[in-house]
């Protein structure tokens, strides 16, 4: 269970995201969205998360910020089409990287499930004390 720091950071990011979006600052807005998602993921893993998991969540956020940047940087509508695997480079980043790399979070969840998300002993202790319907 997290203290107040992560939720407070989520509030700050929400405010920053609102301001950036309404002001039309697309790169900043995209980064706020991604960092907010990473913060929510960190909230889900909680304070019991290992350093390795925390580092993986941070990498997830950083990687996606980079992808958003690449979407912006590689989009060159004034030049000729130079396709990457059949798509314009910026779009290729979306289709071939944003989607598949998003699965990292699911992998991280699976690999940390037994030790961090829900160790069997914690589950047993909770259910022994309160359930079913005690």
């Amino acid at each position, binding site marked *: 269970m997290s203290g107040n720091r992560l939720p407070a950071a989520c509030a700050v990011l929400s405010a920053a995201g*609102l301001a950036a979006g309404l002001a039309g600052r697309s*790169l900043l807005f*995209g980064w706020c969205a991604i960092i907010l998602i990473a913060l*929510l993921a960190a909230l889900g893993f909680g304070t019991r998360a290992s350093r390795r998991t925390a580092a993986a969540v941070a990498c997830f956020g950083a990687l996606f910020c980079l992808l958003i940047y690449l979407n912006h940087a590689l989009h060159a509508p004034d030049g000729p089409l130079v396709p990457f695997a059949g798509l314009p480079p910026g*779009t290729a980043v979306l289709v071939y990287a*944003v989607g598949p790399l*998003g*699965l990292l*979070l699911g992998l991280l969840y699976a690999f940390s499930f037994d030790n961090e998300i829900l160790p069997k002993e914690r589950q047993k202790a*909770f259910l022994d004390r309160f359930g079913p319907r005690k």
Partner: protein
Amino acid sequence: MPLADSPLIILCVVAYLASCFGIGIWAMRRTHTSSDFFLAGKSLGPLVVVIATISSVMSGFGFVGGPGLVYQSGSSSLWMVFVAAFSLPLAFLLVGKRLRLLAEVRDILTIPDAVAARYGGRWPPLMMGLAITLGVLGYLGTQIMAVGMVLRAVLGIELIPALAIGLGVLAFYSIAGGIVAGVYTDLFQGILMLFVSVAVLLQCLKVGGGMTAISATLWAMDPEYIGPWGTRGAIASLSWLLLFGIGAVGQPHAITKMMMLKDIRRLKWSALATGASYLVLAMLWMSIGLTMRTLVERSAYPALEDPDLAAPLFLLHYTPELLAGLVFAGLLAAIMSTADSFLNLGAAAVVRDIPKALRGKPLRNELYWSRVATGALLVLSAFFALYMENLIALLGTFGWGTFAAAIVPSVAIGMNWKRATGAGCAASIATSIVLNFALEFSARHEIYALPHGIAVGAVSLLAATLVFIGVSLATPEETPAEDIDALLEV
């Protein structure tokens, strides 16, 4: 909607409708209590939960509206679907474990039940019940109208008889079999959708002459269209990333399925499997829209009057009959499974959540009244869809955003943050309802539109999150019940 006069397509659709009846009869025998009706007795395996989750999230919008959006504005809407790879795992991460454990120790059948257990008091579950009822009415109306339109196209009959047939089948299996029938038709539909998504992608590449040729045609037409942001621009696309990337955590028809899992430890791989399966479905969303627009640009097909016709026209004219038949059956299945999930949620809100919040106890003979409420909601939604089209369109657009802004802060953050309070929960849900409705209404009536194409739901989600955390920190700390306190530490 064009007319599908092929006997093979009609056969596929009729076979699907008949199978719904079969599943309804089978499920009726397994539905004895309100827990069976709303949560399938918490008896489902991981495959059923995974497939039922992606099926109910995809809905008719994904099969018809998604390709239509791509046809209209290029890559913009891809930001809605490709983010599902992490948004659905995020949902498992934030709420899966705690909702499922809560269902083990308390009499929890619905999201407002969970909110009542987490925060106590009358207002949080009442506000959540209200948000869910409003969202459900809108979603149901659009799904029911879509059922009528698809059956009209396939069977070649008028809208009213088409609606009567679709509603008859839907009423039978959802009233008789509750969510048990719903999730097993979802399973059937999900497997079908996964298969046809891959088949349709291959067919699109064949018809369009490969991805590079498709891109070249579209680049020559408008580089922005096939660029990463589409014609709606970066802010609109990124607001969809935010709304769909985080908002999936707040879709009650998806997260309720996590409470139905028989063995909580099976959550482990379900998160990854759900995200990966949804990515496969995204192929259909992307490929049909791009290919149809390419064909129009090459003058191989006349421009479409309505972008939503992209998928049905492509299927009728460019795919083998059997594949088209399977996709039409899958389309009908997608719409009906989502409608069934919402009927179930709506019945729970009307029969259980709101009465419990107001009277402090549920109705007697809950199973009987749930079936009555399911039937009544179906009739009411059909009436709204037929005679109050504007209201339904408004509620339909505000459904996803309202669920996201109401449920993400209060449930997803609230289940992971002890300092969250009931006042914060009620205030954030009120913010979600008011902002979504006011902004959608004012945009629709050209009173005020948000700048840069930013999605209303994304603004509401950010504002509701801010309100939830701010009000929680500003109100006195609450001491949750002993089991909830322990749950928040698990």
